[in-house]
C-alpha cells in the first residue's frame, strides 16, 4: 500500500465522479458524480496526511471540512431539486434549459 497506489485510486474515483457529473442528465445522478469527486478528494487528502505531511492535524481538519461541504451541498442541492420539480416539474437538466429558453 504505497502512497502512489492510494493516489491512483483517489484519481480513479475523481475521474468516475467527473464522468458522472458531466454525463448524467438527471439532477440527482449529477450530484452523485459530485459526491464521488469529493470522495476521491478525501482519499487523496488522507493519503497525503498519512504519508507525506507528517500527520499534520490540519490535514484531518481539511477532511472534516470536505465532509461538511458535502453535507451542505447535498442539503441545498436536494432542496433545489425539490423546488425545481415543484415549480417546473423538471427532473432533468435539459427540461430546465428548455423552460428557461
Amino acid at each position, binding site marked *: 500500500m504505497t502512497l502512489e497506489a492510494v493516489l491512483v485510486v483517489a484519481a480513479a474515483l475523481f475521474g468516475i465522479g467527473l464522468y458522472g457529473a458531466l454525463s448524467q442528465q438527471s439532477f440527482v445522478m449529477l450530484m452523485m458524480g459530485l459526491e464521488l469527486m469529493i470522495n476521491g478528494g478525501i482519499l487523496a487528502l488522507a493519503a497525503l496526511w498519512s504519508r507525506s505531511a507528517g500527520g499534520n492535524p490540519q490535514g484531518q481538519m481539511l477532511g472534516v471540512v470536505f465532509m461538511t461541504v458535502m453535507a451542505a451541498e447535498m442539503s441545498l442541492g436536494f432542496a433545489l431539486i*425539490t423546488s425545481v*420539480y*415543484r415549480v417546473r*416539474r423538471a427532473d432533468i437538466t435539459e427540461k430546465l434549459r428548455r423552460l428557461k429558453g
Partner: protein
Amino acid sequence: MARAGLQLGLKQALGRVAAGAPVPVFAVAGQGAREHVQDLRLDGRLRLVDSPGAAMVLLIAGGLPDGLAEPLAHLHDSLPHPRATLWWPLGAGPATWPQQFVPTIETRDGVSETLQAIQRELLRGQRPGEPPILPDEDPVPWKGVGPYGQGGTGMTGGTPYGRPMAELGADRDGLRLDVLPLRIGPFFPRFPPGLTLDLKLAGDVIVDVAPVESPFAGAPPVGVCRAGARIFVDALSQPVPVAGLELARAREHLRWLADALVAVELGSLGSRVLRLAAELRTSDGDSIRTLGRALRRTQAIGWATNGVGRIPAAAVEGLGAGPIARAAGLPEDERTHDPAYSGLGFEPIVQRDGDAAARWRQRLGEAAQSLELAARAGDRRTVPTGSVESPRGRLDGEGNATARFLHLLPGVLQGLEWGDAVTTLVSLDLDFEEAVFAETARAGAVAS
C-alpha cells in the same frame, strides 16, 4: 450420496424438533367465526400470524360467500411450502372452493389438535404440501415484449414483468409524484372481515379511498350468526332479557378492544382482555375500570389514539352510529326509546372529542355501564320495536350502523397517514355480518 443422506437426516431431526412448535396459522374469519377465531389467540398451541408468508396452515373458519373464493385461492397460493388448509365450518353450508384442499372438522377443541397434527405430518413428510390452486398465468402476457424482453416500453411505459407502473397525480404538497393505487382486503388482518378498500396512496398518505361493496352485503347468509351478535338480532323480533343483552354488549366491546390492542402492538394485553370477555360477569365492573386506567398508562388511550381520525358530531347526526356518534357528543341511543330501560335510569354516556381515543373511552365506559344495567335489570325484557341498539349502533331490518356509515369513510380516511388510517378504522368497529342476519331476521318475520 453421503451429502444427500446427511441432508435428509438433518431435515428429519429438525422436523422432529419443529413439530412441537406453536402452529403458525393465518386465519380467515367468515360468517359466524369472529369470536372463535379470536379465541384461538388464547391457545398456546397456535400462533395467529398477520401475513400468509408467516403461516404454515390456512384456517378458513365459518361461511364465506362465493365472491371470496378467488381472493381465498390467491391467499392459499401465497403460503410458503409446505402448506395445508383446514376448513372449520362452524355450522356453515358447503364450501365453494376446491374441496380436495380442505379437510373439515367441527369442534373447538378439535381445531388446535387437528392443526397440530397437520403440522406434524407436513414436517415429517407424511403429508404432501398442497400444490397451488390457481394456474400459473401472468396477469398480462409480457415475456419477450420490449427491448430487453422485460415487457415494458420506453422508460416508464408498458407492463414490465406483468404490471404497469404507478402514475403521477396531484397532491396537497404541490409535488406531482406517483399515486399508488392499491386494493386492500378482504383478508387484511386489521380490517373487519369482508371489508375491502380501494386506496390511492401518495407516499404513506391516503389521497383517495373507496370501500368496495362487501361480498357479505346483499347476499343471503352462508353461515350461522356469530354468537356475539345473535342476541341483538333476536331482539329485533322478540323480547329478550335486558341483563343478557347488556352482558353481551359489554362482551362485544371487550372483544373489539382485544382486536384494537393488537393493532397498537399490545397483543399480550389483548389476550388478557379476551379472557376477561370470555368469563365476563355482571360483577366485573371494577375490572373494566382497572382496564381503563391500564390503557391510559400504556398510552393506548393516549399517544396512539389522541387526535386521530376525528369525526365531528355533525357528520354522523341521525345515522344511528352508536358509539361513534356518542364519542362525538351526540346522545343518540335506541335504548332511550325502550320502556324496559327507562325504569333502569339509563342515560347514554357521551364524550366530546370524537377522535379515536374518545371512541376507545366511549366503549370502555359503555361496557362498564352495561354491566351495571345488567346487574340492575333483574328479569326485565326488551320491547321489540323493529330497531335495537347493537354495540355498533342502531340495528334494524334495513341494515346496521356500518352500512349507513360506510359512505362517510372516504372523508374520514382521506389525508391520513396509513398507520393513523388503520387506527381510525379499527376504532370504528365496522361489522358487515350483523346487517346480513338482521335482514334475514326481518325477512323471516315477514314470512311468518
